């Protein structure tokens, strides 16, 4: 009898082929109030992290940008303004509920023409080789079942010289901050989830998945192994979040 492969889903071990389904359930549940919860959970600071990511992307008019796990479209909206009518932004998300919320929100804000939407799995990106000048994945990589496979897929669809930016929760550098952050994540966060979306389990998963995500150095090593060059990371808010960058050779 063959043993089934497992992976983590927060602190829980699940069969590898079940993780995507479980993650999808979480995001179906939180999609409607995702923005509100993000603002409440981070005190609005997630906007600063995303704005810094856009600055570091150096995206300009005419570029093609892939925003993986783009969710409600915060990054895609700004990219759509930057690339102009000659550029293209693809908002991709594996989760249909998140993608629908993102699409409606972007259309409401008047972003159209240079924006397309794709329901896509980061591990199997449905785009030709060497397509994009820039790929971003903000707060999405930790939910991907096989991160190495996703990094290789991103490398494939990037143009040579194109850059990947990964914005993700990481490991705080200061032990005191880490302690306070743990208390916040495991006590306050599920409570807020319960009050606002009546779903504490999903927010407990978010907190657990952050702890299971590779730390800064490990993720940088994974990017190197996938074939990216000039990899580096920048800690933000004491390392609660880190922005990793790499270039396709």
């Amino acid at each position: 009898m063959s043993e089934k492969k497992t992976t983590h889903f927060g602190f829980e071990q699940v069969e590898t082929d079940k993780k995507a389904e479980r993650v999808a359930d979480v995001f179906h549940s939180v999609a409607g109030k995702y923005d509100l919860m993000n603002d409440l959970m981070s005190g609005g600071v997630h906007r600063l992290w995303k704005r810094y990511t856009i600055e570091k992307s150096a995206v300009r008019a005419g570029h093609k940008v892939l925003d993986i796990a783009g969710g409600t479209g915060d990054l895609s909206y700004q990219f759509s303004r930057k690339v102009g009518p000659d550029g293209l932004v693809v908002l991709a998300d594996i989760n249909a509920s998140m993608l629908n919320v993102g699409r409606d929100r972007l259309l409401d804000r008047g972003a159209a023409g240079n924006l397309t939407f794709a329901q896509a799995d980061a591990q199997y990106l449905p785009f030709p080789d060497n397509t994009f000048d820039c790929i971003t994945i903000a707060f999405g990589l930790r939910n991907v079942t096989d991160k190495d496979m996703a990094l290789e897929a991103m490398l494939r669809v990037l143009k040579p010289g194109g850059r990947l930016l990964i914005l993700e929760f990481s490991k705080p550098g200061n032990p005191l901050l880490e302690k306070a952050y743990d208390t916040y994540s495991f006590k306050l966060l599920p409570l807020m989830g319960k009050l606002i979306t009546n779903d504490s389990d999903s927010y407990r998963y978010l907190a657990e998945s952050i702890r299971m995500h590779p730390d800064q150095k490990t993720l940088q090593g994974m990017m190197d192994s996938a074939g990216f060059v000039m990899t580096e990371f920048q800690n933000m808010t004491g390392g609660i979040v880190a922005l990793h960058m790499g270039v396709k050779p």
Partner: protein
Amino acid sequence: MSNPSAITALFIVLEKAVTTALRYDPGTQAQLAKLAGQTLLIDCSRPAQKMYIQFGAADITLAGHYEDDVSATLSGSGADIAKLLFGDQHSLYGSGVSISGNAGVLAQLQGLAGQLDIDWEMALADLIGTLPAHTLANSLRTASGWGRERAQGAERLVREYLAEESSAVLGRSEFALFVDDIDNTRLALDRLGARIARLRARQDHKDH
């Protein structure tokens, strides 16, 4: 390296402040449109921070990271750069600030900063309504005019007391007379010196 979250937050606050101020000064906003598409780098040495100002048609964008070419770079300490941009100085000489690239961008920006004239009444009206804003603005203008008159009156009284009553200092007219007297005395002395020199020369000539 500085904290990117804090710097980004600061840039957002500055951007909002400038955009709001421009909304209440359409003249400056129209002038700013002439700079659209230009990027100015402020390379501050103290505190060490780079700030890229990207000019749009009706607003500005601030960034700490930018990879395209910039129109001009202004380098110096934060205090020196602020003094140059918002003060009366029109030359870089002795300012502690250096510029590279298109200096015209700086001149235009300096001109804009100097002529910024925000319509505070309109800003107030957006917050509390037209009528209350006008009443409040009128009251503030009256209070400010009264304050200015009182300040000028107080200054005149102090000046008169010091000059006339206590004689502690000279009045302006007395000082002018005093300076005129000195000038006249100096001229008379110069003439006297010249005559003496001429008489001495004549005497020397006779002796020989």
